[in-house]
């Protein structure tokens, strides 16, 4: 929905449509509402892909130039969220997914937390129960998508180039290229980065943050934005706890200090410990979506 005027889903707007011009005291300056309600072109994620390539590269982008001119000097009231464009794409993705009853999770963590291994294990565990597809985000390489495909699940790799996170527009393009079945589960493995992906809604049902016990238990405090943005935390590699000084209770307490509503599961992608609870949560959380579709 437009964050300024609430004028619909998946549309970006400039300014308030019913705003009253506000003038400042300065004689040569004035506030005025932006006249046009310039929406982004109607955005449809499942657009036909020109090619069925399995890698998308967002490493390059054009720089545009404008010719400056001079006349009156004034203050334009804009009131637009900096992330409004991303949020518009995310809302359209969310609607597109909901129409098909597809339950999407955005998996976020620092590099090396075991996201891909956990994902492979989850796909294996869900086999026969529900189809799973994966969107893999990394700066470079197809390595992770290949690991996912080895499990038999379809995977599309997005390479962000120099980018540090996936954004909703990238995912929108990926949705059009993946052959997703209705009522399925879509796992989006974000770029390994505990900072930037926190700010970018992709249209997922939930962000799932993965923290492994080989990291510091104070990580939720050091990187609070991500733990605040997530609904679920998977504390991974718990099979290693006997060999480490990591205090799991403390890590969970720190995470809940940031986000009191956080659901936490202690899991091991290696031994399968805790997976019953994790899979049970997926089943329960996706059930309403699958029913409504």
């Amino acid at each position, binding site marked *: 929905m437009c964050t300024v005027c609430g004028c619909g889903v998946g549309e970006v707007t400039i300014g308030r449509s019913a705003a009253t011009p506000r003038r400042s005291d300065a004689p040569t300056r004035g506030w005025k509402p*932006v*006249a046009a309600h310039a929406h982004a072109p109607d955005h449809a994620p499942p657009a036909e892909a020109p090619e069925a390539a399995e890698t998308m590269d967002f490493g390059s982008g054009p720089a545009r130039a*404008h010719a400056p001119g001079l006349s009156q000097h004034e203050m334009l*009231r804009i009131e*637009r969220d900096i992330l409004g464009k991303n949020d518009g794409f995310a809302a359209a993705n969310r609607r597109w997914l909901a129409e098909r009853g597809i339950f999407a999770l955005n998996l976020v963590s620092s590099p090396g937390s075991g996201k891909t291994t956990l994902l492979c294990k989850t796909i294996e565990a869900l086999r026969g129960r529900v189809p799973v597809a994966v969107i893999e985000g990394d700066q470079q390489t197809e390595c992770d998508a290949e690991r996912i495909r080895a499990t038999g699940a379809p995977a599309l790799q997005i390479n962000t180039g120099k980018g540090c996170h996936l954004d909703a527009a990238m995912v929108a393009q990926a949705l059009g290229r993946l052959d997703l079945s209705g009522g399925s589960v879509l796992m989006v493995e974000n770029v390994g980065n505990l900072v930037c992906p926190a700010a970018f809604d992709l249209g997922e049902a939930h962000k799932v943050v993965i923290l492994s016990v080989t990291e510091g238990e104070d990580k939720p405090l050091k990187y609070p934005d991500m733990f605040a943005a997530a609904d679920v935390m998977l504390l991974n590699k718990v099979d290693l706890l006997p060999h480490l000084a990591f205090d799991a209770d403390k890590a969970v307490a720190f995470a809940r200090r940031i986000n009191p509503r956080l659901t936490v599961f202690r899991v091991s992608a290696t031994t399968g410990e805790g997976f019953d609870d994790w899979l049970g949560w997926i089943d329960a959380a996706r059930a309403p979506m699958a029913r409504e579709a």
Partner: protein
Amino acid sequence: MHEMSLAEGIRTIVEEAAQAEGFGKVNAVVLEVGELAAVELESLRFCFEVVMQGTLAEGAALTVERVAGVGWCMSCGESVPIKALYDPCPKCGSYQVQPTDGTQMRVKALDVDGAVERAE
């Protein structure tokens, strides 16, 4: 460095506003950024300068208005001021605090030259 993406977001907003309003030059961009927002302002200032090069906002000043962080304390059942996401409630010391304001990142206004009044 998601500040680069944020700066590009600002550029898009400026360009779309320029298209709608027909102004020729941006002298200043006014942002509204909450104290709890996921952005490092110094980094954003650097990225803003880089990203605006070659656009009609090249060399534009960046003004940032901060918005104080506010959270809802579940224990007290009221809104309390917080400076960080990990801050306890200043009244009861509980960490059961959900941010309710101060997470926004918005382009509030543009100081421009040459805007054309539109006939409605």
